[in-house]
């Protein structure tokens, strides 16, 4: 191989398997030379895949699907290598929770929304990390569960996950759906409260997978083996402190500069209702089912697209 495989990811807890694989020499053990490209936004990931600046990426299924279909300008020959994580997304709102708990579905949830909405001086501005994200689908389903119309009752904005902390502090947004550990960090800083998330909307849904470009299929098996080992490490309870420590280190020291306490919390099902579960398995069609169903309902894809991708 002439150059290392470039793997794109964002600063999130669920990027851990790739970071661990590099830091612990698991890529090297499987004869993979890998370079991690920490990207500032999901567009950079999608464009990097489409325009061959990345060989692989940690990504959520909707964006992977739209990128593969060329809905962002240029189709990319991609294939899913394996799952990396399930769950872990949080729905957070700014201010004070009118209930002492996450919001239940139905009239009670609607009442909580109305009471909270009353404290806002505008139509609530809720952020998702990308339009083509599981986060948008989860937010949409959650709002549907409490009888809130996403099109007319909220204003939807898009921003990278790490930017949400500052946006909440500046009151530029009133909440959003964000991946780990940024939602937990917002709660720990008193910037927001948790109303729901992956577990309340679609428990154990596929969140991150590793997609690879067709140009590196020769390395696919070895890459998968390395990630399998990394996920095995990430799943061990006794490694949680070390993982959080690794991810909290600055990028120049092999980390992702994640907030340490919040990151540790997102790894522990006893401290958060929305923990990240690391899983390295083949992606199966049931994983895609609710995602493609919602993407179809939103008019993003049609039957032909699903046939093209065989999902």
């Amino acid at each position, binding site marked *: 191989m002439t150059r290392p495989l470039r793997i794109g990811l964002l600063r999130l807890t669920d990027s851990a398997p790739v970071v661990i694989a590099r830091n612990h020499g698991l890529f090297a053990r499987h004869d993979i030379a890998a370079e991690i490209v920490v990207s500032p*936004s*999901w567009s950079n990931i999608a*464009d990097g895949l489409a*325009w*061959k600046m990345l060989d692989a990426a940690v990504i959520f299924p909707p964006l992977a699907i739209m990128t593969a279909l060329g809905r962002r300008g240029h189709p990319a020959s991609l294939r899913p290598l394996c799952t990396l994580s399930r769950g872990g997304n949080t729905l957070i709102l700014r201010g004070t929770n009118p209930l002492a708990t996450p919001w239940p579905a139905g009239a009670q949830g609607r009442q909580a929304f109305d009471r909270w909405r009353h404290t806002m001086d505008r139509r609530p501005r809720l952020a998702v990390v990308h339009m083509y994200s599981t986060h948008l689908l989860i937010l949409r389903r959650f709002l549907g569960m409490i009888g809130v119309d*996403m*099109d007319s009752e909220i204003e939807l904005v898009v921003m990278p996950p790490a*930017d949400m902390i500052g946006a909440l502090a500046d009151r530029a947004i009133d909440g959003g759906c964000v991946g780990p550990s940024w939602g937990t960090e917002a709660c720990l800083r008193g910037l927001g409260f948790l109303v729901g998330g992956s577990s309340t909307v679609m428990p154990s849904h596929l969140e991150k997978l590793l997609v690879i470009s067709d140009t590196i299929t020769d390395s696919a098996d070895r890459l998968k083996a390395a990630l399998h080992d990394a996920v095995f490490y990430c799943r061990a309870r006794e490694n949680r402190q070390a993982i959080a420590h690794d991810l909290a280190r600055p990028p120049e020291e092999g980390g992702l500069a994640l907030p340490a306490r919040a990151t540790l919390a997102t790894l522990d099902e006893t401290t958060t209702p929305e923990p990240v579960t690391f899983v390295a398995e083949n992606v199966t069609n049931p994983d895609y089912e609710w995602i493609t169903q919602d993407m179809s309902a939103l008019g*993003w894809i049609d039957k032909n697209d699903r046939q093209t991708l065989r999902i």
Partner: protein
Amino acid sequence: MFTDDPADIPGRPARPPMTVLVADENTRRARALSDDLRADPSLRVLSIPAGTALIDAVRRYQPDVILVDMGRADRDALDSIRALSQPALERPVALFVDRDDVELMETAFDIGICSYNVLEAPPDDVKPLLRAAIALYTRFQRTRGELTEAQRQLAEQKLIDQAKRLFMKNENTTEDQAYRWFRRRAMQTAQRIAAVAADYLAAHGRDGTP
């Protein structure tokens, strides 16, 4: 000129200028790119004021094309421009324009710029815009490279001077003798003189200032 302006062709109606939004947080580069593009009268070139979100600028100026620095994290919002500006969620139309020229787009990406079209139908003459942007970004990269090299040389010279002064003090030699010693040592160990100087300072303490 970047475009074959129909206004110049007798008998063809004048076309309204194409609005280009330059979104680059490097203000010097953004200004240079805007200046380059403004040389073409068929373009209306706009820059984003510092601190303004890309999507707000796009809403305000409604450009035909956006040239954007890939480092901008708020680039994500472009994917949803239509969805955010209309009540119902629709398929976004923020697209790359040069579908037919993969190599050009890959070059653009390589140096950190991309182009978006926010119209349903891409304008015909975006490629020259992108080429102009690529040329300018390359020039900036080169200048930055030259600046880094100059800074490296200055830092090395400072290190060598410091080590020489310490050597002269320790060994009671002239500056010329000190320099010859470092040069000989560099040749013997197949290292740069600056590396030998750094080793010397590390081994003998850094108090080389007179």
